[in-house]
């Protein structure tokens, strides 16, 4: 299209990278948490579940504020950045990944936990009587049975990271190619009255959101049919 700024697609690429990285990390980190939440008998496990779910309720500004301080030169993030000569994790892609992992965690952990919950004790007991080690039972019984949960978790985690705005605005610094993700780019275009560019990206986001929600609904339906 004529007259479009050449860098209009850069935020799209960056957003996809951020969401993919975040989803990958969340699947790795979130699965053991979800498993523990589903299987543990500890009385305080719902407390942990509540902490994981906090970002559902907290305004992004609360997370943005804490992250800005924690990632900064006086916080642990600054110390971490010092390992490779940086001063702060704010304004970096890594900082955004950390923020997104926290922010999107409930959207990945919850569906996986529900899927593990739904399996119940029985299949794992059967696996144990067939002499499967707990680890083997986990990989060959629990994970395949919980596959719909992993799928919804991955889709929701990815989509929710794409939709992230407040935190990135607060800790990102609007750096093209590093922290200027889609939602921030749209905000920027609107603030500077570049409505055509804003329109293109916003319409794309709306279409993307529609596809995600439709996919989720169809996934749910299929899962229900398998179970029913």
């Amino acid at each position, binding site marked *: 299209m004529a007259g479009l700024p050449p860098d209009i697609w850069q935020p799209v690429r960056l957003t996809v990278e951020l969401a993919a990285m975040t989803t990958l990390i969340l699947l790795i980190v979130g699965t053991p948490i979800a498993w523990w939440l589903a299987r543990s008998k500890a009385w305080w496990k719902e407390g942990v579940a509540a902490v994981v779910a906090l970002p559902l309720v907290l305004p992004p500004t609360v997370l943005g504020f804490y992250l*800005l*301080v924690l*990632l*900064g*030169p*006086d916080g642990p993030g600054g110390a971490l950045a010092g390992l490779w000569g*940086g*001063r*702060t994790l*704010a*304004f970096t892609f890594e900082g955004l990944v950390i923020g997104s992992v926290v922010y999107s965690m409930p959207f990945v952990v919850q569906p996986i936990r529900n899927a593990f919950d739904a399996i119940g004790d029985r299949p794992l007991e059967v696996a144990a009587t067939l002499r499967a080690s707990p680890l083997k039972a986990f990989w060959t019984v629990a994970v395949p049975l919980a596959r719909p949960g992993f799928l919804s978790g991955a889709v929701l985690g990815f989509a929710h990271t794409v939709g992230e705005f407040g935190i990135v*605005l607060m800790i990102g*610094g*609007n*750096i093209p190619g590093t922290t200027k993700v889609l939602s921030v780019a749209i*905000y*920027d275009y*609107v*603030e*500077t*009255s570049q409505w055509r560019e804003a329109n293109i990206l916003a319409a794309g986001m709306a279409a993307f959101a529609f596809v995600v929600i439709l996919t989720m609904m169809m996934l749910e339906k299929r899962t229900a049919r398998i179970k029913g």
Partner: protein
Amino acid sequence: MKFIMPLKLALLGAAVACITSSQALADSANIAVAANFTEPAKEIAAAFKAKTGHEAVLSFGSSGQFFTQISQDAPFQVFLSADSARPKKLVEDGLAVKDSRFTYAVGKLVLWSKEPGLVKGEQTLKDGKFAKLSICNPVAAPYGAAAVEAMQTLRVYDELKPKFVEGANISQAFQFVQTGNAEIGFVALSQVINDKDGSRWMVPQNLYSPITQDAVLLKKGENDEAAKAFFEFLKGPESRAIIEKFGYEVPPAKAS
């Protein structure tokens, strides 16, 4: 879906809040204030209330943000911009009262750091011994544009550009430096005028075009007592004293 129900409740709550708040607005004016003017605007609003009893409800943001919102019928009655172009455009577009535009302050750009001794002058920019330099969005905020212009005049813009971090408005640009996430940044003098600990360099006026900050009475305030009173109060001696206290220049009042 199960989140439909809370959504309905939220809408109902919002409707109730709107009804009750519009009653409370009877004696108040909504003022859109460019973020650099946050502190003086608060003092002026307090003095205004003490004198007239009217309430000035202040909103802070970048000039570009307010311009967009006002062109979309935002409920502001007075606009204190950080430039003169946007108020002028609003008058041309019929969104602000003709002939109401006047310059309430001329802003000063400062290079500032929280660390003592870090900012020594233009040499600090030329040496570039810092990781991050905070500015505000040069398209949406006049102070950002002034910062870019100053760096271009000093011929350090291209070298420093990779170190930029951008705040959505000057308050955020300031906050990035204040939290130490950026070592230095271009801010408004009014933001650091009471700061004794950090280091600063007053950017010489010959490096950037004057930041002429204009105010306009918006169409929505044309027939509003509180809005008109605030607009006049802004021109008065009490306001001038406050504005000058924060380091702005105030041009002599024009006979109109």
